[in-house]
């Protein structure tokens, strides 16, 4: 346990001093990786820990981004308030969507969420006068201190670290154990007096909130929003990241996000056929690593620890 904390402190310190020696592009890329990692982890709360088929998570990402953006561009409130409004909008929508969808389970829940999400996407896509339609909104003014790569990086690092920490605590709390119970054996869990629907709703709201935080961070880093952010293909991508990394672990989705964003950027500069290479990697993973990539890392660490002891 102590070893783990030390490890995290080391990683955090490393990330904190990164901008001092790394080229600006990598600092920017790591900002994107961090917020995408948060996005995948927030999805995992719903799908990995609670077994809810959250098929359109990108909606909350988009709502967080658009919520903050519209607050900044359409009103005179302080940007810091706008940064909170975005995730709150995502939270409210996750409540609404949850209330509508929770009467269904599994695949049907997922499909209903996709339909509702597509409705929201369609409105954002078409409402040119309000949301900028398919052009999106760019050049969003953010406070001076974040308006550059270094500033937005530190902001992202801090927010993501706090968010991940909160999610970690949630997952390891009694609440976290309960929702895993709901995932594994709903009938048993009900019989010990747990209100499943309320728990699921809370899970959805937390997942939606942090998805919205991730979207807000994108606005800070890239100063732009596009309807693509909440299109179903994006939801599929986030789901793939989560599955790739390992959906039954806490850090799996984060690792999945790191891998996919890095691969996408690095491979994209090497070949135009990078989707094919990504596809091959995915197939490799599912055949040989049923627990996802994090499972491999964990086995490796445990294997080493075991050897060290003997």
């Amino acid at each position: 346990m102590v070893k783990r904390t030390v490890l995290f402190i080391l990683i955090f310190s490393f990330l904190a001093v990164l901008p001092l020696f790394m080229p600006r592009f990598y600092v920017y890329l790591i900002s994107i990786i961090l917020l995408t990692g948060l996005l995948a982890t927030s999805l995992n709360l719903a799908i990995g820990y609670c077994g809810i088929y959250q098929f359109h998570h990108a909606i909350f990402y988009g709502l967080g981004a658009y919520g903050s953006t519209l607050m900044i561009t359409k009103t005179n409130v302080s940007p810091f308030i706008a940064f909170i409004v975005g995730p709150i909008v995502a939270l409210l929508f996750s409540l609404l969507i949850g209330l509508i969808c929770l009467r269904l389970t599994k695949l049907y829940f997922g499909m209903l969420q996709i339909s509702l999400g597509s409705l929201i996407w369609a409105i954002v896509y078409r409402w040119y006068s309000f949301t900028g339609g398919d052009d999106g909104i760019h050049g969003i003014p953010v406070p001076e201190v974040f308006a550059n790569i270094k500033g937005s990086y530190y902001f992202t690092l801090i927010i993501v670290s706090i968010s991940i920490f909160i999610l970690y605590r949630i997952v390891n709390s009694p609440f976290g154990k309960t929702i895993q119970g709901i995932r594994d054996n709903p009938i048993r869990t009900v019989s010990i007096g747990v209100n499943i629907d309320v728990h699921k709703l809370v899970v959805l709201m937390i997942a939606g909130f942090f998805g919205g935080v991730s979207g807000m961070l994108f606005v800070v880093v890239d100063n732009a929003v596009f309807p693509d952010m909440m299109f179903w293909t994006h939801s599929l991508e986030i789901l793939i990241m989560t599955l790739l990394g390992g959906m039954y672990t806490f850090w799996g989705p984060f690792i999945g996000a790191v891998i996919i964003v890095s691969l996408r950027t690095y491979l994209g500069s090497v070949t135009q056929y990078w989707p094919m290479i990504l596809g091959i990697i995915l197939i490799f993973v599912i055949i040989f690593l049923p627990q996802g990539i994090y499972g491999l890392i964990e086995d490796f660490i445990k294997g080493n620890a075991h050897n060290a002891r003997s």
Partner: protein
Amino acid sequence: MNSSSILTQLIVGLSRTMILFIVSSGMSLILGVLRIPNVAHGSFYMIGAFLSYTITSFLGEGSYSFWLGITLAPIIVGLIGFFLERGFFSYLYEREHLMLLLLTFGFASILGDLVKLTWGAEYRTMNTPAFLQGSADFFGLPIPNYNLFLLLIGPVIAIILWFIFNKTKFGKIARAAAVDKEMVSAVGINVNLIFSLTFVFGCLLAGLGGALIAPIVNISLGMDHSLIMEVFLIVIIGGLGNIWGALLGSLIFGITQSFGILIWPQFGIIFPYLAVVIVLLIRPRGLLSSTW
């Protein structure tokens, strides 16, 4: 808009939904019987279209090559599906349901790039076969003959599929296996073979949809994403593994889409999604019976 133009709208809007139906019925089989969320279904649709284009440009544009195209292209697509199923999917049925998404998504990415490698990036068009060119007059409004052809083919395919999956031994076993795999294999039936054939059938249908739409559309990369989401939604509201459900779902989706945009141009595209939401709220397991 008077009644005759509404009628024409209806008839003509229906012909596109026929393609949706054919592709969706394939997905309904794969998702309903094998429980595989096949994101690569769109890729098979695209390959079917490109193959049809190649076949007709190779043989010249006559009615011969058209019929050959729409029979050969789906068969080749079915074969590709067969290799994928035997080579990969069949070993992974026991895997976590959702993880299969990784598999099909991976294949979709690979197939998409293979199409780009094989045919290049330019888009192709082919023409409708000579005997189906031109249009018929319906109360003074033109309906292209090819659309009428699609309107006929759709129900024909529906009836053939219904017959295969409800009246033949194969079909009944497949549906039984969809509901209870262990039981069916306990009775001594080779479930793997059944699953294999069903998967091939599903892919074949996707390829057929692509081949049928090829003459009236730009054949381009990106076709694989163009209807995959609609197909998933249609299959869910129709009922998994249910051919008539796929037809019903396609009709609902297609008609709400065409009329929606005519009635409310700005936000018309929300109507099909609205329809899906309403259906799922009223009949959560789909309109017609599902296999699971």
